[in-house]
């Protein structure tokens, strides 16, 4: 009877908790389509196809060149939109499967009722609340969230089948849907691990971790954990902790698992982003590789096998053909690996992984070190190899960044290795240059020549802080409102940079010095920490981890990107009082029009990065990628010259007012750091800016353009609504230019004042919207 009563109480509590107030809880494929259409109509999809053909079914290959239709009736535009959607689904599925793995594992370990704890917050899970319509409080509350995401992803995938969706516009809506789902999957994964593993909770003073290829003590056995999923590595850390092994074994991470390791245990270190993976394996330094999931090289086993580094696979999504040894004894497995009988093992029993890996490292480490196994050539071999170069440029033509490798080879034959050191910094570490007709292992040659700088590669990264707290947002409100903080820049994504890791560091430094809040995650967060100023300080040592003007925050790993969208939701909720539950469209509309946040995925290469960016787009956050982002096949470009299609609603009186194109684009690329920086400043401008904020944002836009492009931007004037919008320091000069540029504004030259504006309402209201209020005020 008592049990029945408890069950009933729990059911009632759950019912109350799951009360939905907004108009679109658990939106299906078309529930947010009108919002998507608004996005697409303002920011037109631009397709940069990689291939002009379609080979999805046996009708094809079909030639779709010049937007022709194929045998099934699909044209290139629609097919390109479909490919964009599939890219986004792959990314979203990756994060969601990661979340499912973590959730099932932790519920199994701690139970459904284990509480969510992300630190001091009014919104435990902002993304979940906005999309699902309820605020989760326990791990069990996340079950229906992932059920929903998985159901939606299946529906989306089905729409890509031949004979299903036939509209590019609706594929775009579905792509945005997949992006939104991606953020939901990321949030579940991130909150689950924060709540269950004791990760930092909105900790602005999160400690610093060491990063770099030169940080490990190579006299000790070395364990390197590769991927994104912390569970198996966590067991290794626990075992090492309980057995006092941190003095005897070095353990570090590559890619996002590295972030999670440092959030879990302060004794761990970070080698670097995915671009270091092959380089570090080839160095021969690792004694054991532990792989989990995502961003693990497909050839990791082959590479490791050549250097006698055993690979322990720990996730069923990423098994590399290894035999399942989950039920075998640890001693047996170790014997097989140390003897070389097997190159690796799949072990899905994490406790076993936790005990086996340190023991394996202790046993195989001394053997490997005694043999001095490495793929890096000797001095003598190096000379022979560089002299074999025929300058055929195959390596440059294969290289994702077209690096001038043959030039470095030629210089090295004359004893100058500086060009190789330069290449090491720019190289994304893919190793495709090894397909050399002369048989030169090019990556190994680059790494050999760069040994001096590799040893010096030692930096610092602030470990992932998790969610931005309510308190931080409330305290920063006035700065954001007045433009004292001109914007929030999220430097996210992978390490396929067009200009090496220094480029992303330079962008961060420039924007921090200008007072922007810089929020980082994933590989970008790591790479920023590799560089130092003249005083030998990294940016993480120079700026705090607080969400306040001119500071640098590391949210954490790839799934921590959920905090970016979540922060904008919290701003809408806390500062504008917009209802969050099931109210996606209104929140996104507010973010688009009033929150000056921009995402920069400068080195984006993965499907996950595209999904994250697309999720940001649906939520109203513009994203810029590096030039390689054009390979994602789709951008969302605004056309500011189409004034007749502008128009934005004033919430003061529901009237339609003309608006400046802000943000001008929703997803776009930049070719260089120089054109990226002014673009970032411009994309922080929002129709809802106060005049003081607009003046500050325009100041930075103009200054960055003058600094990096040596010119006053052509379009600065269209962002001036009245004279208080004009940057004070240049007011006289700008008023003169404004008079020449914009005849629609009447200027009293004697008083140096704008006295009327036929385009924009004088005294533009602060809150503008694209949609009528969808919810009654709470």
């Amino acid at each position, binding site marked *: 009877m008592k049990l029945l009563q408890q069950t009933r109480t729990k059911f009632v509590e759950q019912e109350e908790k799951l009360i939905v107030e907004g108009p679109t809880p658990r939106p299906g494929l078309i529930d947010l389509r009108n919002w998507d259409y608004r996005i697409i109509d303002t920011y*037109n999809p*631009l*397709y*940069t*196809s*990689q*291939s*002009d*053909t379609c080979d999805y079914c046996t009708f094809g290959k079909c*030639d*779709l*060149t*010049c*937007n022709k239709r194929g045998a099934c009736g699909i044209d*290139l*535009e629609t097919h390109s939109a479909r490919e964009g959607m599939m890219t986004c689904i792959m990314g979203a599925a990756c994060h969601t499967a990661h979340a499912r793995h973590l959730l099932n594992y932790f519920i199994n370990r701690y139970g459904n009722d284990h509480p969510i704890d992300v630190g001091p917050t009014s919104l435990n899970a902002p993304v979940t609340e906005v999309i699902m319509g309820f605020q989760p409080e326990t791990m069990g509350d996340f079950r229906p969230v992932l059920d929903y995401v998985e159901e939606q992803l299946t529906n989306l995938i089905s729409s890509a089948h031949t004979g299903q969706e036939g509209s590019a516009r609706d594929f775009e809506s579905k792509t945005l849907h997949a992006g939104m789902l991606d953020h939901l999957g990321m949030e579940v994964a991130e909150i689950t691990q924060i709540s269950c593993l004791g990760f930092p909770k909105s900790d602005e003073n999160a400690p610093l971790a060491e990063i770099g290829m030169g940080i490990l003590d190579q006299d000790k056995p070395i364990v390197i954990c590769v991927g994104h999923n912390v569970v198996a590595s966590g067991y290794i850390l626990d075992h090492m902790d309980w057995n006092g092994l941190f003095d005897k074994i070095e353990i570090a991470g590559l890619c996002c698992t590295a972030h999670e390791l440092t959030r879990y245990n302060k004794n761990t270190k970070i080698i670097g982003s995915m671009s270091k993976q092959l380089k570090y394996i080839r160095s021969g330094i690792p004694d054991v590789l532990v792989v989990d999931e995502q961003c693990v090289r497909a050839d990791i086993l082959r590479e490791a096998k050549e250097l006698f580094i055993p690979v322990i696979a720990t996730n069923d999504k990423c098994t590399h053909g290894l035999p399942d040894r989950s039920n075998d004894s640890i001693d047996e497995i170790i014997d097989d690996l140390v003897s070389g009988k097997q190159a690796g093992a799949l072990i899905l029993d994490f406790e076993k992984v936790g005990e086996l890996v340190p023991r394996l490292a202790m046993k195989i480490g001394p053997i490997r070190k005694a043999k001095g196994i490495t793929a890096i050539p000797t001095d003598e071999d190096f000379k022979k190899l560089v002299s074999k170069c025929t300058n055929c440029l*195959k390596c440059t*033509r*294969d290289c*994702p960044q*077209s690096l001038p490798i043959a030039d470095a080879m030629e210089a090295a034959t004359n004893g100058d290795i500086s060009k190789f050191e330069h290449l090491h910094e720019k190289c994304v570490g893919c190793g495709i240059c090894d397909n050399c007709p002369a048989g030169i292992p090019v990556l190994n040659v680059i790494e050999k020549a760069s040994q001096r700088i590799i040893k010096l590669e030692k930096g610092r990264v602030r470990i992932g802080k998790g969610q931005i707290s309510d308190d931080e947002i409330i305290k920063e409100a006035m700065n954001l409102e007045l433009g004292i903080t001109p914007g929030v820049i999220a430097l996210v994504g992978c390490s396929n940079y*067009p200009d090496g890791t220094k480029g992303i560091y330079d962008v961060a430094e420039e924007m921090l010095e200008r007072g922007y809040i810089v929020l980082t995650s994933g590989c970008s967060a790591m790479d920023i920490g590799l560089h130092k100023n003249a005083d030998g300080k990294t940016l993480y040592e120079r700026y705090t981890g607080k969400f306040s003007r001119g500071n640098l925050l590391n949210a954490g790993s790839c799934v921590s990107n959920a905090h970016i969208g979540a922060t904008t939701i919290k701003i809408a909720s806390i500062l504008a009082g917009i209802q969050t539950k099931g109210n996606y469209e209104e929140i996104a509309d507010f973010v688009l029009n009033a929150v000056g946040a921009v995402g920069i995925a400068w080195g984006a290469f993965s499907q996950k990065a595209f999904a994250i960016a697309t999720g940001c787009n649906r939520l109203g956050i513009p994203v810029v990628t590096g*030039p*390689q982002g*054009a*390979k994602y096949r789709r*951008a969302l*470009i*605004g*056309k500011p*010259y*189409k004034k007749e299609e502008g128009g934005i609603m004033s919430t003061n009186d529901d009237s339609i007012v003309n608006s400046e194109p802000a943000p001008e*684009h929703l997803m*776009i*690329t*930049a*070719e*260089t*750091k*120089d*054109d990226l920086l002014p*673009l970032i400043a411009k994309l922080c401008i929002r129709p809802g800016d106060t005049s003081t904020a607009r003046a500050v944002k325009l100041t930075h836009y103009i200054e960055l353009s003058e600094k*990096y*492009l*040596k*010119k006053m*931007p*052509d379009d600065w004037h269209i962002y001036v609504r009245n004279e208080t919008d004009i940057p004070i320091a240049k007011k006289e000069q700008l008023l003169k230019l404004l008079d020449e540029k914009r005849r629609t504004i009447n200027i009293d030259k004697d008083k140096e004042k704008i006295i009327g504006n036929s385009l924009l309402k004088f005294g533009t209201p602060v809150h503008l919207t694209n949609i009528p209020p969808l919810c009654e005020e709470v």
Partner: protein
Amino acid sequence: MTKKEDVKTTRHTGKTIDTTRHATPFDTGNIPGPKTARAVMPAVSGKILARAQRPLLIVGSQIHDKEILERVVTIGRRGIQIAAAGNAYKSLTDQKELDVHQVNMHALAAYLCDPSWHGLDKKGNYDLVAFFGITYYYASQIIATLKNFSKIKVISIDKYYHPNANISFGNLKNDIFTAALDEVIAQLPKVKKNF
């Protein structure tokens, strides 16, 4: 097939300027589909550029080298409007007599595909786009858009073979490339033409 009388040599080294050789995508995997650029001699590109009603030259981040920059400026002085993508503008900032506009390459592609766009000078969209000096893969992706979704002719006068253009040079060595650009320039009207 290159006609014998079309073949020229470089001024200093005497090498044959044949821009139709090595006409394979510079990035080895960049095979777009059945329709790929015809490799032509520079005189052909120059004549097509000279005949265009509304040509636009797009340049990017790889024009800062003195040899290349000089040729960008020369083409601009012959009356061809220039769209400076990436950070190209910073090397053109002192060229006051040129009609140069700072652009974002991605946005420019979107505008070019829109017949209602009024152009960088507000005189209407363009009928021909020529380009060089842009990060290879970036240019290739962007001009794939023009190839598939616009009626604008695209001529690559870049150092590399661009399969997505209508016509292109093959992959060239530096000296041949600059000589080829000179041949293109030689076909343009000597006095500034108002396109």
